């Protein structure tokens, strides 16, 4: 092609007729060259977009893996903060929950939570059962940053998280089968229907409710479910007796620390992935605010409990980290570094006071799930109205509407499910089983059969 042009140019000094042809040839060649260049440019564009799509999608897949590993975090944290005689049971629940969660989310949760644009502003929508790859579902036609599969996987991992939050609060006394039933309904129906209000484009989204990665949608919903369970179950034997409140120490701090670090690691994907793309600036900022809040929560909880009990209580330090993480989850995208520091510090203080308060209220929560997920989830959601780029009275009001409406709905729904289960098959193990441990009663095995127990 270049040859054509240069040929034509070299002939310019000859006569006009010939010249005419030469110019014409040049133009024709030019046109062809242009068309080819255009094709190449377009093909480049396509490749660029494909790269961008693959890149964003890669991050979302990795984020899904990170959120997945949070289930190991919950499993080890919750079992670490409960007694050895119930370890198998606690581990078991946290192991089957991601399985139940993914399967029910595939069955109907995904369709309930993301019913599609026609349900914008609604309270309820449904796209249908099962996973059905839409046309172009594996390309950017589905979404600029992830495939249909990635979308499901990421959201499915979130859904399972919500049910896991409940498991810690009701541990050491709930009947296994009752808990599994509850989880199934909670993750199949309650979480996705309420989640749709915000993330599925529902009414809360339309009024401007901001909940970046789920301080309310994931953590508070889980927390409200936990509260319903705690109320209906009653406390563990030996927790509140003769007018006093007795501590029931967790059996394995190593486990609890592994759990907390796994959760913090998972939060890189939980918050980082909630950007829904690999946007360099936003994702990295979110990771920084997330880590700063976690650190602040850690330090604040450590010194708050120290000032109360004169002890550096590791279990509270761990709760502080999670409190900071839950607190920043709603606003990790709209708050600055200093905001996240304050949000984390406040969360770390709140979580300690909250644990003590729930004990005073005789609500027995073995692992502090209510304080971490429910109370700090509320705090974090509110904080969006107080700090960062969305701060303002109006936003506070909107955030409160979200907190209250979701809270009410989640609590009532969870209470109803638990209540029906309680009235039919029961929710609490026998007194004997509780004393000797759920591991024997529900699983016929011990978690640590080779060690002597105290």
């Amino acid at each position: 092609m270049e040859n054509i042009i240069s040929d034509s140019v070299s002939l310019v000094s000859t006569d006009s007729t010939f010249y005419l042809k030469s110019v014409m040839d040049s133009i024709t060649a030019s046109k062809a060259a242009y068309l080819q260049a255009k094709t190449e440019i377009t093909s480049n564009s396509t490749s660029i977009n494909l790269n961008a799509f693959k890149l964003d999608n890669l991050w979302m897949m990795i984020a899904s893996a990170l959120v997945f590993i949070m289930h190991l975090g919950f499993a080890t944290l919750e079992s670490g903060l409960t007694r050895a005689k119930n370890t198998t049971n606690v581990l078991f629940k946290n192991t089957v929950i991601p399985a139940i969660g993914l399967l029910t989310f595939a069955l109907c949760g995904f369709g309930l939570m993301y019913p599609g644009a026609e349900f914008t502003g609604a309270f309820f929508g449904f796209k249908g059962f099962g996973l059905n790859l839409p046309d172009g579902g594996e390309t950017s036609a589905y979404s600029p940053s992830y495939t249909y599969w990635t979308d499901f996987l990421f959201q499915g991992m979130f859904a399972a998280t919500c049910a896991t939050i409940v498991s810690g609060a009701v541990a050491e006394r709930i009947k296994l089968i009752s808990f599994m039933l509850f989880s199934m309904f909670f993750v199949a129906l309650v979480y996705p229907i309420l989640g749709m209000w915000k993330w599925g484009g529902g009414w809360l989204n339309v009024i401007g409710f901001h909940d970046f990665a789920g301080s309310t949608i994931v953590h508070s919903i889980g927390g409200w479910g936990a509260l319903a369970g705690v109320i209906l179950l009653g406390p563990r034997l030996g927790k509140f007796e003769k007018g006093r409140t007795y501590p029931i120490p967790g059996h394995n701090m190593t486990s609890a620390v592994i759990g907390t670090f796994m959760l913090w690691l998972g939060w890189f994907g939980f918050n980082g992935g909630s950007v829904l793309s690999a946007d360099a600036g936003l994702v990295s900022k979110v990771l920084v605010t997330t880590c700063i809040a976690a650190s602040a929560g850690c330090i604040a909880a450590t010194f708050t409990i120290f000032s109360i009990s004169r002890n550096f209580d590791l279990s509270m330090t761990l709760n502080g980290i999670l409190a900071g993480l839950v607190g920043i989850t709603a606003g990790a995208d709209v708050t600055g570094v200093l905001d996240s520091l304050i949000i984390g510090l406040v969360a770390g203080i709140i979580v300690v006071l909250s644990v003590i308060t729930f004990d005073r209220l005789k609500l027995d929560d073995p692992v502090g799930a209510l304080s971490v997920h429910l109370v700090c989830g509320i705090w974090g959601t509110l904080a969006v109205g107080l700090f960062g780029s969305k701060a303002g009275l109006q936003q506070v009001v909107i955030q409160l509407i979200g907190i209250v409406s979701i809270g009410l709905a989640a609590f009532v729904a969870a209470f109803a499910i638990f209540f029906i289960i309680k009235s039919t098959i029961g929710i609490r193990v026998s007194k004997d089983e509780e004393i000797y441990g759920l591991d024997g009663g529900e699983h016929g095995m011990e978690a640590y059969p080779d060690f002597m127990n105290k």
Partner: protein
Amino acid sequence: MATLEPKMKKIQAIIRASKFEDVRDALHKIGVEFFIFYEVKGVTFQTEQKGSYRGLSIYDSAGSIPRRVLEVVVPESDAKEAINVIKKSAYTGETGDGKIFVSSIEETHRISLG
């Protein structure tokens, strides 16, 4: 060198761990200041299945039940009361409540007296 003068009895009570705190408090009320306890397994020969692992029944450890042993050494004169108190506070009425064995102690020494 303090061999205590009064005749002493050792009371060994095998009780349910769940009754431990009741027994402890009851003993405290009648003036027992110290005792030791440790964990044992009681063997029974009812081989009812108590668990399973990977599809295989766990019979053996099922045949043993965890119990707590209290050992307290008291002067002969107090033994009756202590025994009664333990019996009452460890009682549930169901089989498995445990046993109390009494034996003689010929000398007792308190190490801290040198």
